[in-house]
């Protein structure tokens, strides 16, 4: 119990952020027309590419003589970038197809 209270107390503002963000995520998706679900999935996929930031961080803190870390970090940044760039480009291609003015059929 004490452990949990301490954990909450020490990370309180992150916990607020997480909870509010969960709400935002739920509300944002809950009201979206089903036609957009696939591009939305793809867009969300691109957004979690933000994990790239973490990869840059670790590679950016690796020592110059620590080959293992440099190699792993290098791969990490590559795959992270793949996620980001691939994700946004695929999403853009999908959404390009919605460029026409949506007519009656697009509603609901």
């Amino acid at each position, binding site marked *: 119990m004490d452990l949990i209270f301490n*954990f909450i107390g*020490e990370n309180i503002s992150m916990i607020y*952020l*997480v909870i509010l963000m969960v709400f*935002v*995520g739920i509300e*944002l*998706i*809950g009201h979206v027309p*089903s*036609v*957009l*679900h*696939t*591009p*939305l*999935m*793809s*867009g969300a*996929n*691109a*957004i*979690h*590419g*933000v*994990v*790239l*930031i*973490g*990869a*840059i961080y*670790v*590679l950016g*803190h690796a020592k110059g003589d620590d080959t293992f*870390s440099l190699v*792993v*970090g*290098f791969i*990490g*940044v*590559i*795959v992270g*970038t*793949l996620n980001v760039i*691939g*994700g946004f480009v695929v*999403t*853009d*291609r999908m*959404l*390009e197809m*919605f*460029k026409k*003015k*949506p007519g*009656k*059929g*697009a*509603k*609901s």
Partner: protein
Amino acid sequence: MKHIQEVLFLLGSLGFVVGLKMMGKPDSARKGNLVAAAGMLFAVLGIMFFKHGEEGIHVVNNVGLITAAIGIGTLVGWLMAKRVQMTAMPEMVSLFNGMGGLCAALISLLEWKFKGDSIATMPAGEYLAIIAGLIIGTVSFVGSIVAWGKLSGKLGDFRFPGQQFINIIMLLAIVAMAWLNFGAAADGNMMYFYLVIVLAAVYGLLFVFPIGGADMPVVISLLNSFTGVAAACGGFLYHNNVMLMGGVLVGSAGTILTIVMCKAMNRSLTNVLIGAVGGSSAAASSGGKSGGSVREVQATDVAILMKYAQKVIVVPGYGLAVAQAQHVVHELEGLLEAEGVEVKYAIHPVAGRMPGHMNVLLAESNVSYDKLVEMEHINPEFATTDVVLVVGANDVVNPAAKTDPSSPIYGMPILDVENAKQIVVLKRSMKSGYAGIENELFYNSKCGMLFGDAKESLQKLVNEVKTL
């Protein structure tokens, strides 16, 4: 300017939230994607060039290496994403998702190494973030690769007895290893750490393998939110707000999206994961066993029927995507309209293998947006329709959903094609669709079957209509 990094991260987070919101409306969706991408750019600039240090703000170490890696990733990612066929997009998304999962796992791996001796004094929260990032990232990576393999036809289905039971055991084992590792690692014992990785990878395999290929979009959406959570773990670890925000946003939005997708198929998430329906689709060669007999028709007859009709409704399905027949069907539509026939498309929400699949597919061939009519709006129109052309659709027009309570698709709303005067079905055989069940519709006296690949059949129809 000490806080420039924080400001950039704030802008990045805002970009994600606003971008995702804009993606929820057809008009602003494309711009929304760009806004989210701009957010990502801010975040990357922030982490690379505005590091806080004792001597103020500076660039991170190894910036050349990082730039090179980003360059490679950008080039490869760009090419892959630009080259991929429209129909192969789901597997592409899955592949990219796997990359994100791998990235999260690698971060945890390195972070663990960096911690080295300080492991013994690590706060529980920090350990949790590292190990959760590792486990979830690995599961997401392996699972996504399997899903990608299945969707692109490289991997088949694979089921084994007691799979649910084994999966639960696996999960417990992972948690146990992670727990033991917390103690053991302080003494330099890395065995449990490696065990965690191996078990997570195996779990990813066992989790996704038995699920039918057709259920992959749901699984991908779920793995998507997994990767989001893995990214959030990293954000928590580094107290990095933009990672935290982006990760949690995807984690929550992805989960909701998964649930919404399941709902549209009238199934629950557990049902999809346990694979009650999906798995049997491969084994569904039971077609043709039904009592009645089917009426086979020829392209010429169908062409005449349509040319002299007042109104034709096309019902596209998964087969249209498989056959890549979206351009031919649009050509046929143009020819018929030129003859004065009214042509519309009936879009079932879960036709195909991902939500909006048919919209995306038909939009690719420039079918005008207002010819695509959603189920609720088109259903009343079938009664006044002369010919319904079912192109590679099966489950979404199966009357069993309304009449047979024992059917796995019972309760799913379907397109009421049997109200039309004539029905023509284009498919290659009597095989069943995704749900692996018989379709009474094909035995309906109003229904004619035009066997063959959808693209070829449509091409024949186009030729016939032209020469008639």
